[in-house]
């Protein structure tokens, strides 16, 4: 696509702008900001990726992955402010998931060890892990708050913090994984996954695109399960103190 054709695509921005103006939706400013931001951000990423892919330098790859993990951690930590040390707990989760998935992919030579593959797949894994962390933290904080009585009851009867929080932890882990599993059930029927569509448009063999998409689907199942479980088990202890008391006002 040339920059000229790309400019023509701005028609797709003008239509909502006109609609917003005529119907007084008041969305003109937001639409323009969103358009400008996406142009700048994506072009910048495109040029950076081009540079990194061409250089094939392991240091640049590591730097890119580190930046992704930092940005994802920063995004997810807001949901878990009440949990002490949540920043490093999310970071540990993301790093673990990234190392685990890349070790399997590269170790079994499922994908070639090139910047192109490592960075694109890392982006998907880290992005999904971040979403899972946010889903988990939202649900977990809500569960802990609603079931304070039960937690206190189990502690009062001589249960450990782990026993006292077990049901809430399991509920939150399950709830956070459900969207991943559900969306995969309808994959290909309701919607073609974005990455597969992209590959097909770019001229790839559909069967190969499907095979690759299957790999990603399985990968994201692992990502979802490992992220929630690991973050869950890292998080719950900070709701209690050394005397096995549920800390007040945490949530």
């Amino acid at each position, binding site marked *: 696509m040339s920059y000229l054709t790309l400019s023509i695509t701005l028609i797709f921005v003008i239509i909502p702008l006109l609609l917003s103006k005529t119907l007084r939706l008041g969305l003109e400013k937001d639409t323009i900001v969103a358009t400008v931001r996406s142009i700048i951000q994506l072009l910048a990423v495109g040029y950076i990726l081009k540079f990194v892919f061409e250089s094939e330098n392991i240091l640049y790859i590591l730097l890119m992955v580190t930046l992704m993990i930092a940005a994802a951690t920063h995004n997810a930590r807001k949901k878990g402010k009440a949990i002490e040390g949540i920043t490093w707990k999310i970071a540990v989760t993301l790093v673990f998931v990234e190392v685990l998935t890349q070790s399997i992919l590269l170790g079994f030579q499922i994908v070639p060890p090139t910047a192109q593959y490592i960075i694109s797949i890392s982006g998907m894994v880290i992005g999904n892990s971040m979403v899972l962390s946010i889903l988990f933290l939202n649900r977990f904080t809500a569960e802990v708050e609603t079931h304070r*009585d*039960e937690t*206190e*009851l*189990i*502690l*009062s*009867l*001589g*249960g*450990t913090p782990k*026993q006292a929080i077990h*049901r809430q932890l399991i509920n939150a882990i399950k709830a956070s994984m459900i969207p991943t599993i559900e969306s995969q059930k309808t994959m290909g029927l309701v919607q073609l996954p974005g990455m597969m569509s992209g590959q097909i448009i770019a001229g790839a063999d559909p069967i190969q695109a499907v095979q690759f998409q299957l790999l990603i689907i399985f990968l994201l199942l692992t990502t979802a399960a490992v992220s929630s479980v690991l973050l869950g088990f890292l998080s719950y202890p900070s709701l209690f103190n050394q*005397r*096995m*008391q*549920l800390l*007040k006002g945490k949530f």
Partner: protein
Amino acid sequence: MSTLYEPALHINDVNYSMGDVHILKNITGSFPKGKITTLVGPSGAGKTTLLKLCNGLISPTSGDIFIHDKPISSYEPTELRRHVGIALQSAPMIKGTVYHNLALPMELQGRKLAEQDAIAILEDVGLDKLFLHRKTNDLSGGQLQKVSIARTLNNRSEILLLDEITSALDRSSLHEIEELIVKINRKYGTTIIWITHNLEQAMSIGDYTWVLMDGQVIETGESDLLKSPMNEVVRQFVQGGAE
């Protein structure tokens, strides 16, 4: 209070604050071993807070609580909480049936509760065995209190803390539970600390009574003290009846 008795639990100058709120102020005293001490006072006086301190659900801001001359902070929390059992005021339940709740204390230690034993416990608190597999959601306030008491008794604690456990019971159930607790007290020598807003109950059941008001112990002594309190404020409280 008489010092002839060995204290099961001794409280030494305990304060408890939450933020700026001073909830318990300089509490000192002993609960005699093998006796029933009733705790009375207006709501908000700090009675529940005092029991939670004894069970280790919370820790004093200053001061200490002793069992066998050792501060409770030196005991393993899980061990302490089994030794000093508590029946909480709100009778909270875990999700599931009456059986799940009765079996909880054992389950927390990796043990099972035989169905026969569960039925026997239900009978002790005056519930029919038909209740065993009912969901706790379907029970009345009084029935929940009975399950809560039965569950706490399953830990066979040497010290029992009871927080308004009969507030939702009708007269005949109330007497049934009172008899059960007295029986446990006599049979096993269990030390009982019993919060009640029923002053009649505080006198008839208690060997000793503490009157708490506004975070302070205002008067203590043999439970008859409630008939003719020394303190003017306590007299007004007693005459005004329980709230």
